[in-house]
């Protein structure tokens, strides 16, 4: 078993502001890795860099052995992703969304149709696959996005707060399937979440990031032991403090926006 994700000394600066500050970690193949941190800690920024849509300021990344800044196609073929916010086309049906994804990822037609049918059934949307996505509830959209991320049989699955706004039934259902996928097909899973009980239950390893730096990295059990806490949530708070980050996150967002404005719209 090799290392599926290798991150060394990764840095992302927005102007003066350092969103990700020299972080390093590795995720072995077939493992479920939880990336935890308060709002504005740098989780989504890290995922963006791992998934080729944002260039790092410094450091190196290997995804399935490839560099996201240079070998984008190989990297993109290796992973499926469920983003923090929705990324479906509301004006298309579930089936059309899936089909579009399959074509973009070069899944041959016959296999595509077979897998689409199997996957929409799996997430319980088989009956409604011909409905426009704009008629779906938040939970249904989420399930569809999970199904879509799996369509091209990725080696790595990135999940950025995949269960936000979902009821316990759906959360359990989705995690159950993802655990099974990891166990049976050796898919590597990298996820972020604010639900510590969820991370405790499913993750083999977790890293806690705060202010752009990794402050702890181990299995959930070791983390609880080390901080002498009964739950991962208490351990998390022991590591990251009680201060509520909403204000700070907003300020961060503002700074990012300003940064974008200054550098001509966030490109580069």
């Amino acid at each position, binding site marked *: 078993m090799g290392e599926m994700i290798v991150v060394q000394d990764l840095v992302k600066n927005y102007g003066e502001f350092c969103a990700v500050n020299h972080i390093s970690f590795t995720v072995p193949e077939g493992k479920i890795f939880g990336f935890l941190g308060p709002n504005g800690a740098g989780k989504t920024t890290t995922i*963006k860099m791992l998934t080729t*849509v944002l*260039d790092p300021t410094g450091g190196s990344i290997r995804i399935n052995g490839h560099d996201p800044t240079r070998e984008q196609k190989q990297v993109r073929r290796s992973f499926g992703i469920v983003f923090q*916010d929705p990324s479906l086309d509301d004006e298309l049906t579930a089936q059309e969304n899936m089909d*579009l994804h399959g*074509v973009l990822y*070069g899944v041959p037609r016959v296999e595509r149709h077979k897998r689409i049918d199997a996957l929409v059934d799996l997430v319980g949307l088989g009956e409604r696959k011909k409905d426009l996505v704009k008629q779906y509830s938040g939970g249904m959209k989420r399930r569809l996005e999970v199904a879509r991320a799996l369509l091209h049989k990725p080696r790595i699955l990135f999940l950025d707060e995949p269960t936000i706004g979902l009821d316990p039934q759906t959360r359990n259902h989705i995690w159950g399937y993802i655990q099974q996928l990891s166990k049976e097909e050796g898919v590597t899973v990298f996820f972020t979440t604010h639900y510590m009980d969820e991370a405790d239950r499913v993750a083999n390893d977790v890293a806690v990031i705060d202010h752009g730096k990794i402050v702890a990295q181990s299995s959930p059990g070791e983390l609880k032991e080390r901080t002498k806490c009964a739950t991962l949530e208490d351990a998390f708070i022991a590591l990251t403090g009680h201060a509520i980050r909403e204000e700070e996150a907003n300020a961060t967002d503002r700074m990012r926006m300003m940064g974008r404005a200054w550098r001509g719209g966030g490109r580069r």
Partner: protein
Amino acid sequence: MKAIYILCVRQLKRYVRSPARIIGSLGQPILFLVALGFGFRSMFAKAGGGSYINFLSPGIISMAILFNAVFSGIEIIWDRQFGFLKETLVAPVSRIEIVFGRMLGGALVAMAQGIVVLVICVIAGFRIEKTAVLPLAIVFMFLIALLFAGIGTVFGSVLQDMQGFPLIINFLIMPIFFFSGAIFSADGLPKALQLGLRLNPLSYGVDGLRGACSSVFAYGLATDLIVVTILTAFLLGIGSYFFSRIQL
């Protein structure tokens, strides 16, 4: 190639599925056609210009294409806000294919809208001299659509939100429309305005389309075709460049 095709199909599906948008974007061209077409008809005829509807219609068709094509490019901002853009940007497909699919889809939608306006113009009294030249008219309509889908793509790629949209419409697209010879000819205009018309890419598209319908070209068929083709190729390139630099 398949990526270009499927992204094109996506845009056509979205177009066909939103009758509100189809009808909504017909409002402006119909308003211009009726208000100007019938308002200035007798004045134009008295001045010896002939049928104003025949003169105006290619301009109004170009207008419909112009607005829809620019809008299709600006839809990138929507896709960014509603998230679909990310889905295409992490796919193992080159940005060039994605942006070409988008521009081609946008251009086809704009052209479809142009053809609807053409039909309305015919109902209002627009007469095409020889139906044999209709393919040439279609070529010009398609080139105008592609050209402005390229311009829209530049803005859609650079802008982060819709706040700059009125700026683009009022200070770029409206002037491009008004000073393109769509509603009046360049003859007898002050020198500065004539130069403005000469520098406006849409002028050549409007003239080409008008010439195709009436066999009278102001700049000549070859000039129109060459200028519009080169500019279209250029803007597709620029649009692709800006799109490929998008980061999330």
